[in-house]
């Protein structure tokens, strides 16, 4: 391993182990170091955001220079990004003008994209029924119907008896709660093993190997 790779691995292991000890040992120096190191990581995450923005701008400028197809969209992206970034730097994100920009551009587009999901999700459900009809897809779509039926009153009919007051709470709070708990514990166990592999240097996702 090259010296620079060794330095990166040493950094990851040393900082990671100290922060981890700070979580589990009630020993003041570790706790204090944990707070400082997390603070440094937050600062570096701020720099990482700038690196990401720089990369985004560089990719689109390259496309614009090469006059690739769709580069006009890239021009709009770069322009709006730089304008918003400079305005945000000058005024701060809480300034009324920035709030207005948020209300005018971000909120409507985000909400409209969310609204488009009603169509795409319904389409995906129909496709699933046509292409992969098995017990699990029927259980999945049956659950969706039960939850939606139990959530809102139907026109003319009102609340569906039994579904709204017994079936929906049992399905969503007990059965789905159990499944979600199993998934959560599985994710936590996966995080634990993957994290420990990083902390012993077996995985080096920071450019080592």
């Amino acid at each position: 391993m090259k010296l620079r790779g060794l330095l990166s691995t040493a950094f990851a292991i040393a900082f990671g182990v100290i922060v981890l000890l700070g979580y589990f040992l009630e020993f003041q120096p570790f706790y204090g170091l944990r707070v400082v190191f997390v603070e440094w990581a937050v600062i570096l995450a701020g720099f990482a955001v700038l690196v990401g923005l720089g990369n985004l701008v560089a990719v689109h400028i390259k496309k614009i220079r090469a006059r690739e197809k769709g580069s006009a969209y890239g021009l709009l992206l770069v322009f709006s990004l730089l304008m918003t970034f400079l305005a945000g730097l000058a005024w701060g994100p809480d300034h009324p003008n920035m709030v207005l920009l948020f209300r005018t551009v971000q909120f409507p587009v985000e909400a409209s994209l969310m609204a488009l999901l009603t169509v795409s999700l319904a389409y995906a459900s129909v496709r699933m029924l046509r292409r992969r009809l098995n017990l699990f897809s029927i259980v999945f779509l049956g659950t969706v119907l039960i939850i939606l039926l139990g959530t809102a009153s139907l026109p003319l009919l009102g609340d569906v008896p039994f579904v709204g007051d017994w079936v929906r709470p049992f399905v969503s709070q007990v059965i789905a709660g159990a499944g979600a708990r199993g998934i959560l514990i599985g994710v936590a166990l996966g995080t634990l093993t993957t994290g420990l592999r990083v902390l012993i240097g077996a995985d080096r996702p920071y450019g080592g190997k």
Partner: protein
Amino acid sequence: MTSMPSTEWIAGLVSFLLTVMVFSYLWKDNALFRLAVYLFVGVSAGYVGAVACRQVLLPRLILPLLEGDLLAAFPLLLGLALLGKLSRRTAALGNPSLALMVGVGTAVAIGGAVLGTLIPQVQATINNFELDPARSMAEQILDASTFLVGTVTTLVYFHYSARPGAQGPQRSKLVTLLGWVGQIFIAITFGVIFAGVYAAALTALIERLSSLRLFLGSLF
């Protein structure tokens, strides 16, 4: 229309146009939809960058440095090295900074997984069997047992180890059966999540349609 302040009216018009441009995707993927999305990405990215500078780098790095906190010089050096990632030739300079972030992030994730998920979730599964005398005992036992069976079988479904057999590696029959039950629980869980997302999407659709109607109403 006349009673509406001009800035508000222009904001309403832009909001109206962007909504229509995004909804045009229902017809097909077209230039108007792409314009709206690229504008959205640009504005969002710029906003995030401004937040990172004003609410992270300024108060946590620049101000302490100006106040003479020499400890802040270390993350500054690492941050500047991280900016080397912008060029292919200097990208390796940023690896130690990335390693620090990964190391600290991993430790925080492990701490969160153990203290925030594993212990509380296992504890909650056990606590379900502490019966409340005010509620029906049969109902509580049914709930707690379902929780226990659902949690265990869902975990078993993600258990992929297998023994070597005549026709290649095979899971034991018990694990296969429990995994099958777990799959039912997972299907129901995803169904509930899907229904929640669908309900949220419907709410957004109603809100957008209502805003379109309000803006059109303000014109006449």
